[in-house]
């Protein structure tokens, strides 16, 4: 096949992968501490996208800059939500937490549709159309910037988790809450903060989604499908795995787009998801296939 | 003197003997970086009440979990009545005639005592799945077992409302509903007062007289010495001694394991 097209696909794939990694990292983090799939994750990302869109159209605030606005806002929202809603449910029943998450996803979708209509939106910045060329390969500027922003946030998250006391506490809680409690970790508080971080990181992905893709409320279901595929492939709870999986799937999607009609790209994610679950349910980096006895 | 611990190869050879209920041949199991079992072998002779003892962390419960299908050993094989079972799911192993209880008593708390008894009944046919949960003769059997353990009056109570001792008895009674040939008990005396412990020991003896083979993990040495023969000793993930209670008690290797470190 055309080598040039392939290289182009690889470049686009890597850039997309970076953004996907950002969007999925919050999801895997939340699963790690709470053992719950945050079904509302994509809805949260979209809410941040809408907020960014509003800030852009009303104040002309560049979406990349709006990341600095939405992250703290969503951190607070996430912390409050965990403290007053999710903690209420406790660890008794994971299924109830999933249902609440589902309910929140629906509520967010309905609110988005009520306030901003269910038409396609996109954040069209001045540089949305520019690209530059490296040899034969076109690099859309906006994709490069978005990937860059994603890597910055991911880098910050990585540093937080590996270098700080909080990060250590989070990782301990992810591995074994009971042991973590025994060594002095305030598991309840750490869970709340980790959830808030997860939501906050998701929010960072919102403006990026907004500049790269067009969206409307119901697209959250296609997005959550993609993110779940990434997280399952990478191994739920593993940040490293999520990053690797996001890159792999970003590449796979772009390469598939070279050979398949454009519409079918989402199927790549879903086929990978099913494949992984059949062959290696714990994903690439996960360790527990059969959960606690 | 105690016999040398049986090597994996010997266990393999004897695994299919009709007098061997349970044979574990050289199993290894690790978690992350922790080696829980290293080339551990043992065999249980039919009709015995065999004890499995050892200091905390010696791998006894891990051994149980590997035998019953909850963990898959990385190396080695386990034979239940001669059938290799590594890779099988727990329910398949139950159907081969092996039942177990758990260290932390596990019962279905929101079901009634009677319902708890019905769950383990071996369902042989597809049709039996869809007929009434509790058939006449099954109810009779369940009730007679409950009576044997002295908890028949609690029949319709939610199992979670039973006292700790009653729950242990229920777990044991339920384990017998499946008419197992081999019953594995994980610390049956744990948390019970002396009267209860006597009761449990008495039940085990009586069931053994009726043909049930037992493998029992226990820390209570009185219970072990009075009831069990042979006694298998584990330490740091491997079997270090096997023999009659008296021999094991006097074995310097065993004493070292308990007192050393």
């Amino acid at each position, binding site marked *: 096949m055309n080598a040039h097209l392939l290289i182009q696909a690889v470049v686009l794939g890597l850039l997309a992968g970076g953004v996907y990694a950002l969007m999925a990292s919050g999801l895997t983090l939340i699963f790690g501490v709470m053992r719950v799939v945050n079904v509302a994750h994509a809805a949260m990302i979209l809410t941040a996208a809408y907020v960014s869109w509003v800030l852009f159209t009303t104040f002309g605030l560049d979406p990349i800059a709006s990341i600095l606005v939405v992250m703290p806002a969503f951190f607070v929202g996430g912390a409050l939500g965990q403290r007053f809603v999710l903690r209420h449910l406790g660890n008794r029943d994971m299924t109830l937490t999933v*249902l*609440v998450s*589902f309910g929140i996803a629906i509520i967010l979708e309905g609110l988005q549709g009520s306030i901003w209509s269910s038409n396609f939106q996109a954040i069209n910045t001045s540089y949305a159309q520019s690209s530059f060329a490296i040899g034969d390969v076109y690099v859309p500027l906006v994709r490069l910037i978005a990937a860059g922003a994603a890597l910055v946030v991911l880098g910050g998250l990585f540093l937080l988790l590996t270098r700080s006391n909080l990060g250590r506490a989070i990782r301990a809680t992810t591995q074994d809450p009971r042991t973590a409690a025994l060594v002095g970790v305030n598991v309840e508080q750490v869970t709340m903060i980790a959830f808030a971080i997860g939501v906050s990181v998701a929010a960072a992905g919102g403006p990026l989604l907004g500049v790269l893709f067009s969206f409307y409320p119901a697209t959250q279901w296609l997005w959550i499908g993609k993110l779940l595929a990434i997280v399952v492939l990478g191994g739920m709870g593993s940040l490293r795995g999520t990053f690797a999986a996001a890159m792999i799937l970003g590449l796979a999607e772009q390469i598939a787009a070279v050979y398949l009609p454009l519409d079918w790209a989402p199927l790549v994610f879903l086929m990978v998801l099913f494949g992984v679950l059949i062959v290696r349910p714990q994903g690439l980096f996960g360790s527990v296939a059969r959960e606690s006895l | 003197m105690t016999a040398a611990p049986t090597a994996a190869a010997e266990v393999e050879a004897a695994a299919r003997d009709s007098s061997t209920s349970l044979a574990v041949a050289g199993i290894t199991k690790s978690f992350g970086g922790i080696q829980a079992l290293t080339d551990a072998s043992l065999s249980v002779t039919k009709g015995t009440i065999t004890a499995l003892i050892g200091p905390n962390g010696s791998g006894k419960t891990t051994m149980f979990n590997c035998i019953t299908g909850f963990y898959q050993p990385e190396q080695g094989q386990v034979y239940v009545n001669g059938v290799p079972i590594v890779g099988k799911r727990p329910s398949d192993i139950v159907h081969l005639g092996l039942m177990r209880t758990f260290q932390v008593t596990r019962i279905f708390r929101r079901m009634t005592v009677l319902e708890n008894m019905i769950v383990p009944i071996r369902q042989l046919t597809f049709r039996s*799945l*869809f007929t009434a949960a509790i058939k006449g003769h099954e109810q009779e059997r369940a009730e007679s077992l409950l009576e044997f353990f002295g908890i028949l009056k609690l029949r319709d109570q939610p199992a979670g409302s039973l006292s700790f001792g009653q729950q242990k008895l229920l777990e044991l009674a339920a384990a017998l509903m499946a008419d197992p040939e081999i019953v594995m008990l994980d610390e049956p005396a744990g948390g*019970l007062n002396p009267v209860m412990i006597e*009761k449990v020991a008495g039940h085990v003896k009586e069931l053994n007289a009726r043909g049930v083979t037992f493998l029992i993990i226990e820390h209570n040495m009185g219970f072990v010495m009075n009831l069990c023969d042979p006694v298998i000793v584990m330490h740091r993930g491997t079997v270090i001694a096997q023999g009659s209670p008296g021999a094991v008690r006097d074995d310097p290797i065993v004493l070292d394991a308990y007192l050393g470190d």
Partner: protein
Amino acid sequence: MNMRKQFPIVALALFLVLPVVVHEGFYLDLLLFTFMYAAMSVGWDIMGGYAGYVSLGTVGFFGLGSYAAGLLVIHAGIPVFASAPFIGIVTGILGAGLGWVSLRVRGTSFVIVTLTFASVAQFLMLDLRGITEGSSGLLLPLLNLPADQVILPFYYSMLALLVVAVLVSLAIRRSKFGLGLIAIREEEGKADGSGVNTSLYKILAFAISVSFAGAAGAIHAQYLNTITPDSEFELVITLSVIIMALVGGRGTVWGPVLGAFIIQPLSVYLIYLAPSGIAGQLHLVGLGVILVLVVMFLPNGIIPTWDAWRNARRRPPEVDVPGTTLPEVAS
């Protein structure tokens, strides 16, 4: 107790006779949708209530059933009332396949697979344009009945579906299979260790559970006449089914039915109240809020909560079993 057994029979008799007396399409329409949701909710509860595994993919099976029925009508002339039972069975087989992928390992795979399945199903119906006409949808030929009678076959077939669902649920609830499912919900590891083949049980329960959604979808296709990926894969359908089971009582036979009779009229009323244009969106918000509130404040649902309250008032006498009342202190 007697009332509990007689009430459904009386209600059934009333529903059978009702169309003779009531001719307004509005009420018959409301009832038939209530029957439909009740049936799907009873089905959902077999997996979500008895076994404790929450499926978020109901609408995926519903929509596929709808399209299957539509295509059979258009290309093979088979009326939906004849094909619905078979579509139900095929849906069950599909559910078993999906269950095999996601239920052999415990935990979260199931939620993920069911959720993404619904998306995939909708996506396929949208993109297999050659077969499904994509977003323009399928147009089914109208039934050859006078206008005042045309609703009747739908009314009675949905009622029949509900009756079958309830009978199946009752049978399961009272059987060893049902006891096994509840054991799985309570302590899955212990259930496996008691001889219950948890994978098989779960897969079977899921297959039965989704078959009602497929059959309902089939009948729905003919009722709407025009079906599109949007109309047949509305997330509201999954959402409603779940809320109904939760409100009425997860894990009971009649809970989902009660829930349907409460929620469906409420749902219709919500749409009626909402300003048009965003009625659909506000409907989503309303239902979402109800779901969150129910999970937080009435997680067991009406029937179990009512039962527990009644039992608490009639406390059974303390049982004294000789030999076990000594203080249980570790020696």
